[in-house]
Structures are given as C-alpha cells and as structure tokens.
C-alpha cells in the first residue's frame, strides 16, 4: 500500500510509510518465476496453455498428415503402420496423447468453473489434482497399449 503524505496527517503517514518500507525491505522478494512455488491450479493452467499451443503446432499438421495416410490408399495405410513401429515416433505420440488428455481434462474443469461448479478454493485445488490424476495415468495406459 502506498501512503501519500498530505494535510495534518503528513507526519503520521511519513512514520507509517517508513515502517512499511522497513517491513517490505525485510520480506523476501521472490519475483524470480523459478523461485516462486506456484499453486497446483496455476501449474495445471499454464500446462493447459502450453499443451494447447503444442496441439496447434505441430499437433494439427501431424494429425492431418496422419489422417491422410490412414485414408489415402492401402499403401499409405501400410506405410503408416510401418512408421508407427518406430519407438521414437511412439514416444512422440505418447507425448501428444498426454498434451491432448491434459488439455481435455483441464478444459472440462474450466467448463465446470464457468458454470460456477467448484469455484471455492479447496474444491478448485482438488479438481486441479484430479486433472493430473486422470490425464497422466490415462497417458501411461495409452503408452502401454502402444508398446
């Protein structure tokens, strides 16, 4: 809070602001994003954004390329099956499944919040845990199914 000196209260405010300045000085200032521990809803939120960007690029062109290989001809279908045997590509696919599932679960959570479900702090924290508790095991399950 900023104190503006003025009128008869000038001297008092000056003292208070000096006290405040001293207090503020002693507080740790962790504006370094890597030192601040974010609450779980904030982490789930930024992951929703990052996963969204990655699903846009390179996600969408990958998806369309895959759909094209799937549907173009028996030869392209066989080529896609062969390419999907590659462990590196499987790993990449698992990551994109994770991005999708996280984006989906976090998105459903936002829809609930928009409808005023779970807006209390405790509920909001719990639901952000659920986003991870559902999306990560489902991703691992997909990984197991792929291998």
């Amino acid at each position, binding site marked *: 809070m900023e104190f503006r000196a003025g009128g008869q209260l000038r001297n008092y405010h000056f003292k208070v602001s000096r006290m405040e300045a001293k207090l503020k000085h002693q507080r740790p200032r962790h504006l370094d994003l890597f030192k601040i521990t974010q609450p779980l809803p904030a982490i789930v939120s930024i992951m929703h954004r990052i996963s*969204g*960007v990655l699903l*846009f690029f390179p996600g*969408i*062109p990958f998806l*369309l390329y895959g*759909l094209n290989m799937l549907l*173009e001809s028996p030869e392209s279908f*066989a080529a896609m099956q062969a390419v999907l045997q590659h462990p590196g590509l499987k790993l990449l696919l698992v990551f994109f499944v994770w991005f999708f599932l996280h984006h989906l679960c976090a998105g459903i959570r936002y*829809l609930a919040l928009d409808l005023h479900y779970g807006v209390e702090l405790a509920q909001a924290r719990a639901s952000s845990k659920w986003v991870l508790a559902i999306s990560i095991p489902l991703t691992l399950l997909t990984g197991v199914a792929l291998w």
Partner: protein
Amino acid sequence: MVKHSGRIVTGAHYGLRDWLAQRITAVFMVVYIAVLAVLVTINPPQDYAAWSGIFKHSWMRIATFLFFAALFWHAWVGVRNVLMDYVKPVAIRLTLQVLVIIALLVYLVWTAEILWS
C-alpha cells in the same frame, strides 16, 4: 477541439462471442471424439478397408469436417489469446495472427481434400 464524451472504449464486442465459441466448439469436439472412441472400441478396425469404411459414410465425413472446423476455430481463439498476452509489438503480433489464419484456412481445405478424395 476534441471533447471527451465520457464513453468507455469497449472494443468491437467480439470477446464474449469468442469466449462462447471456444466453449461450444470444445463441447462439440468432446462429443465427436467420444462417439468415435465408442465406434472404434465396439468394432475395432484392423485394416485399411475397415478404416476407410468408417469414413465412407457421408454423415461421418460431414461430422469429421465439422470437427476439424470446430478445432480450427477453437485453435484460432486460443492462439490469438496467447499472441495477445505475449507478443506486444503490434506489427509482429498482427503478422503472426495473419499467418495463423492463413495456416488454419489451408488446413480446412486440406481436411476437405482428405475426406472427399
């Protein structure tokens, strides 16, 4: 002399429409994915004939095209929000936004070509 009218500049009122569009497209995509997941789980397609058989029905082609149209619209709102948050120089931001729109329009044409060729 410019006289201040006291009005607040509120933009073109596209905020609510975009906000709503992003949610409606999201729900539509979830429904499409759920239906497709159920179809593929009940009767798992093993080969090319089975997969292309699914996408041979015109209702499936239309639904898939609408899914992708919803996806591109959803992506536009999301990417535009991200660009508005992080890219402050107007010239660079507008250039990126135009590139995103062009990319999404190309994807839409590509989608139609995949589904109807």
